[in-house]
C-alpha cells in the first residue's frame, strides 16, 4: 500500500510498535557482519529451532549492530513487563540453555551485559519504560545497559536505530518516527527552506572532508543543468573503518530518508548508492529497503502524493579503494575505470555525466532527517563552535572495549580511548592512535608534542596520522583538529600499543596505497612503489644510511604532485612515523633490530632454559616442527608437589626452520619463549 497521509503513517506506526514490543517474549540476535563473524548465524539458528520445533513461545528477530562489537554475538531478550536483557558472547549451547530457562519462566543473569530499562525514540521523543528489576527480571541485579562505561558518554543520532530495529522491516523504522519527517518536509517546506535549515544546523560532511552540507546542496541546486543527481558514497575503503557498513546494515532507511529529503531540496529525480562489494550484508539490506520504499510509495513517482519523483539505483563497487574519491566514484558509476579527475570544476556543477551532482556520505545523509525534524537550533546545540552534532567512530585495535561509537563533537581523544574504550589492555603501554586511514588524519606536532601550524612536510612539522600520547587531550572536532594541522578523517580510530612496529605500519600503508593507486599520476604510481621498496628493505634488515632522508624527499614529491587525495596524502604514514618514531627507523637500519618485535627478519625466538619446564606446549603448537627437545632438565625435587613427576627435556628452537609465527610464545604458559 502507498503512504499518502499522516493517517497512513500512523497506522503503520501502530503496527510497527506492535512488532517492536509484542505481547510475548522477543529474542533479537544482532546479525551485522561483526556478529556473523562471531557466530551469530549459528546462534540465530539455535533460537529459531527452539521457537519452531522446540515450541518456545517467542518471536525471534534479527537486528543490526548495537555497537559493542567486541562482545558479539549480542542477544537481547525481552519479556513483556520486564527490562530487556542484553547477553554477550552467545553460543548455540548457551542459547539452548537460555531457552530452557525461558520455558521454565525464569531468566538468569549469567552472561548478561546489562538491562535496558528505558528506550527513547530520538525522533518521536516517545519513552518506553520497562518495569524495574525484580519484576520477574533476571534475578541478580544487572547494570543499566545505557550506563555501561562504553555507552555512558555516547550520544546516538546517526546510529539512533541501529540494534533496536529489524533493518529489513520498514514498519520498525516508522514505529520509531521514521518517514514522518519526509512527509512533513514534502508537504510543508520549500527546497530553499530545507537548505537553509541544513545550513543553519552547521552539519558538515562526515566522510572526512568536513565540507558544509548546506553550502554543497545550495551550489548544486543553483548549478545549471538539465538534470541533477544525488549520490550516497558508501564505498568505505579506509581499512579499520566500518561506520557506513554498520549504518547500512542496521538502519538503511535512516540514510534513505535523508537522501530523499536531499533530492527534493536539490531538485533531483535520480540517485545512486555506491556501496562496496565487500559489504554483501549492507547490499542485501539496502536492496530490501529500496523494495519496501517503492512498495510504500516512498520512492518512484509522486512520493507520498506530493508530486515529487525520485528513485535510487544501487551500484556495487569493484573493490578499488580509489573509488571512494568522488570523481573516481562517478567515473565508476558511468561504467568506466575509476580514475579521478582534476576538480577545478566542482562536481556540484559538473559531476556524474557532467551534470550537477551532490555526493554525501552515508553518515551525513543519516543525520538529515534528525536535523529536519528536531530543527537546526537543536542540532547546533550539540558539539562545538564550528562542528555541530556527533561523529561515529570505529574504535578498534589494542583497546579493551572495541566497537562502533557515536560521540558529541568536542569530546577528547583521551575520553574516547579511556572512558569509552576502557584503555589499553593490562600490562601494555599506549603508543599511538591512527586516525583517518591510509591518508592519515594529519596532526602536526613538534618534537615536544606541541602543535605547530604548517602543512608542508618539508618544513617544521610533518603530517601525522598517528596521535601520540601528548596529543590525547585534543578535542575531536573539525576545527581544533584543522587548527592543529589535522583533519577529522572518516572515523576509523585504531589504537596501537607498544607491540606495534611503526616502520611495519608505514610499510603496510604504503604497500596498500601502492596497490590501490589508479596509476594515472606518475609520482603516485612510481613514487609509492619506490617508497614501498625502501620500506621493505628497512623492515627486512637491509636498510641503508640515507634511506630515511630518501623517504622524506620522495614523500614530499608524491604529495605535492598528485592529482587526488590518494596521492596527496599518501606519504603521511611514513612521514609522520619518521617524525615521531625516528628512533625506531634508526634501530631497524643501524642496529638491525625491531624494537617492537614485529619485523620477522630482525627477530628470533629463543627459549629461556631457566624458565622452560619442558611441558612441550610449544612443540605441539609449532606449525613447522622447529621446536626440538634438547638437554634433560634437572630431576624434579623430591616432595615438591608442583614439580613434574618425571624428568622432562628442555626445549630449543631450530632457527633455520623457524618461520617466526610466534605460536610457541602464545602457547607457553611460563613466559619462557622470548623474542630477541
Amino acid at each position: 500500500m502507498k503512504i499518502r497521509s499522516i493517517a497512513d503513517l500512523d497506522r503503520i506506526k501502530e503496527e510497527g510498535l506492535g512488532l517492536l514490543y509484542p505481547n510475548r517474549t522477543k529474542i533479537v540476535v544482532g546479525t551485522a557482519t561483526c556478529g556473523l563473524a562471531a557466530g551469530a548465524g549459528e546462534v540465530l539458528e539455535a533460537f529459531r529451532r527452539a521457537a519452531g520445533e522446540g515450541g518456545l513461545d517467542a518471536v525471534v528477530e534479527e537486528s543490526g549492530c548495537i555497537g559493542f562489537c567486541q562482545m558479539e554475538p549480542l542477544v537481547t531478550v525481552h519479556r513483556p513487563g520486564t527490562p530487556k536483557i542484553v547477553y554477550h558472547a552467545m553460543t548455540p549451547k548457551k542459547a539452548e540453555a537460555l531457552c530452557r530457562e525461558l520455558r521454565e519462566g525464569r531468566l538468569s543473569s549469567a552472561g548478561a551485559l546489562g538491562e535496558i530499562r528505558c528506550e527513547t525514540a530520538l525522533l518521536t521523543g516517545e519513552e518506553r519504560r520497562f518495569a524495574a528489576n525484580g519484576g520477574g527480571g533476571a534475578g541478580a541485579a544487572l547494570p543499566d545497559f545505557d550506563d555501561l562505561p562504553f555507552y555512558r558518554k555516547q550520544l546516538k543520532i546517526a546510529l539512533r536505530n541501529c540494534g533496536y530495529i529489524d533493518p529489513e522491516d520498514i514498519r520498525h523504522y516508522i514505529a520509531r518516527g521514521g518517514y514522518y519527517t519526509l512527509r512533513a518536509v514534502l508537504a510543508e517546506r520549500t527546497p530553499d527552506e530545507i537548505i537553509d535549515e541544513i545550513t543553519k544546523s552547521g552539519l558538515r560532511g562526515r566522510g572526512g572532508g568536513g565540507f558544509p552540507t548546506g553550502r554543497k546542496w545550495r551550489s548544486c541546486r543553483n548549478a545549471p543543468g538539465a538534470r541533477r543527481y544525488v549520490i550516497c558514497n558508501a564505498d568505505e575503503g579506509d581499512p579499520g573503518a566500518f561506520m557506513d557498513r554498520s549504518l547500512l546494515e542496521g538502519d538503511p532507511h535512516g540514510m534513505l530518508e535523508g537522501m530523499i529529503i536531499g533530492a527534493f531540496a536539490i531538485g533531483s529525480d535520480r540517485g545512486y548508492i555506491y556501496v562496496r562489494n565487500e559489504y554483501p550484508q549492507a547490499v542485501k539490506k539496502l536492496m530490501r529497503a529500496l523494495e519496501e520504499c517503492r512498495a510504500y510509495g516512498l520512492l518512484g513517482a509522486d512520493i507520498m502524493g506530493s508530486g515529487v519523483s525520485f528513485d535510487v539505483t544501487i551500484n556495487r563497487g569493484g573493490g578499488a579503494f580509489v573509488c571512494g574519491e568522488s570523481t573516481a566514484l562517478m567515473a565508476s558509476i558511468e561504467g568506466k575505470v575509476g580514475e579521478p579527475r582534476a576538480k577545478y570544476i566542482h562536481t556540484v556543477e559538473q559531476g556524474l555525466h557532467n551534470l550537477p551532482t551532490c555526493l554525501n556520505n552515508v553518515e551525513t545523509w543519516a543525520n538529515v532527517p534528525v536535523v529536519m525534524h528536531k530543527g537546526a537550533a537543536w542540532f547546533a546545540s550539540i558539539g562545538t563552535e564550528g562542528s555541530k552534532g556527533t561523529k561515529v567512530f570505529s574504535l578498534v585495535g589494542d583497546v579493551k572495549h572495541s566497537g562502533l561509537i557515536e560521540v558529541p563533537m568536542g569530546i577528547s581523544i583521551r575520553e574516547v580511548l579511556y572512558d569509552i574504550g576502557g584503555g589499553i589492555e593490562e600490562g601494555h603501554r599506549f603508543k599511538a592512535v591512527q586516525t583517518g586511514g591510509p591518508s592519515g588524519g594529519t596532526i602536526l606536532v613538534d618534537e615536544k608534542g606541541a602543535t605547530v601550524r604548517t602543512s608542508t612536510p618539508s618544513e617544521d612539522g610533518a603530517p601525522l596520522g598517528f596521535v601520540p600520547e601528548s596529543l590525547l587531550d585534543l578535542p575531536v572536532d573539525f576545527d581544533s583538529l584543522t587548527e592543529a594541522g589535522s583533519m577529522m578523517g572518516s572515523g576509523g580510530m585504531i589504537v596501537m600499543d607498544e607491540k606495534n612496529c611503526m616502520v611495519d605500519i608505514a610499510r603496510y600503508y604504503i604497500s596498500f596505497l601502492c596497490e590501490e593507486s589508479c596509476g594515472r599520476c606518475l609520482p603516485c604510481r612510481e613514487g609509492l612503489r619506490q617508497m614501498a621498496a625502501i620500506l621493505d628493505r628497512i623492515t627486512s634488515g637491509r636498510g641503508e644510511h640515507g634511506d630515511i632522508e630518501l623517504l622524506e624527499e620522495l614523500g614530499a614529491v608524491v604529495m605535492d604532485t598528485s592529482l587526488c587525495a590518494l596521492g596527496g596524502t599518501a606519504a603521511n604514514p611514513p612521514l609522520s612515523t619518521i617524525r615521531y618514531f625516528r628512533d625506531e627507523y634508526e634501530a631497524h637500519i643501524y642496529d638491525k633490530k625491531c624494537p617492537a618485535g614485529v619485523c620477522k627478519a630482525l627477530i628470533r625466538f629463543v627459549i629461556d632454559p631457566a624458565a622452560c619446564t619442558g611441558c612441550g606446549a610449544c612443540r605441539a603448537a609449532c606449525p613447522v616442527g622447529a621446536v626440538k627437545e634438547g638437554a634433560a632438565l634437572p630431576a624434579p625435587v623430591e616432595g615438591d608437589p608442583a614439580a613434574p613427576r618425571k624428568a622432562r627435556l628442555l626445549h630449543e628452537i631450530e632457527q633455520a626452520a623457524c618461520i617466526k609465527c610466534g605460536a610457541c610464545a602464545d602457547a607457553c604458559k611460563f613466559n619462557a619463549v622470548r623474542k630477541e
Partner: protein
Amino acid sequence: MATRTAREPAVDLAPAEGLINAYVESREATIALLQDVQKLYGYLPRPVLDLIARRLDLPRTQLYGLATFYKAFSLVPRGRHCITVCTGTTCHVKGAPHLLATLERELGCRCGETTKDGRFTLERVNCVGACARAPIVVIDEKPHGRLSPAKVIKTIERYE
C-alpha cells in the same frame, strides 16, 4: 585480480545471453553486468567477454580495462570456495600476515591463486569492516573472526 592463464573449461554462453539482454539498455551498467557474469561463472570467461563486446558494441580493450582495474574480477576460473583473508589495518596488527602465510603453506598456493584440485582460491581484501573481531577470514561470504593459524586450518577443513 588474477590474470594468470589457466586451462579454461568450455563455456556455455546461454546464461550470459540472458544477463546481457537485461543490461543492453544502459551503458552505465557495464560493471554491474561484469559482476553478474563473475557471479554466474565464478570468473569472466573470455568467450563471454567477446560476446558482451559484440552485443554492447564496446571495444574489447575497454572490458579488459575494467576487468583488470577492479579487484573483484578474475579472468581465470576460481576454486569451489573462496578464502579471503582480511588484511585491513586492524587485522594486519592482529596477525593477518601469519594467517595468510599459514594458508599459503597449507594450501600450497600463493595469494591470488587457486589450489591444484580446484577446491580453494586464496585471496585477500583490504578490510571487511568487522575490525573488532580481527583477524577475520571470509570463506564464501561467511566471515570468521578472531582466528589463529591453528583455528583457520580447522575452519577450512569444513569446506569440501
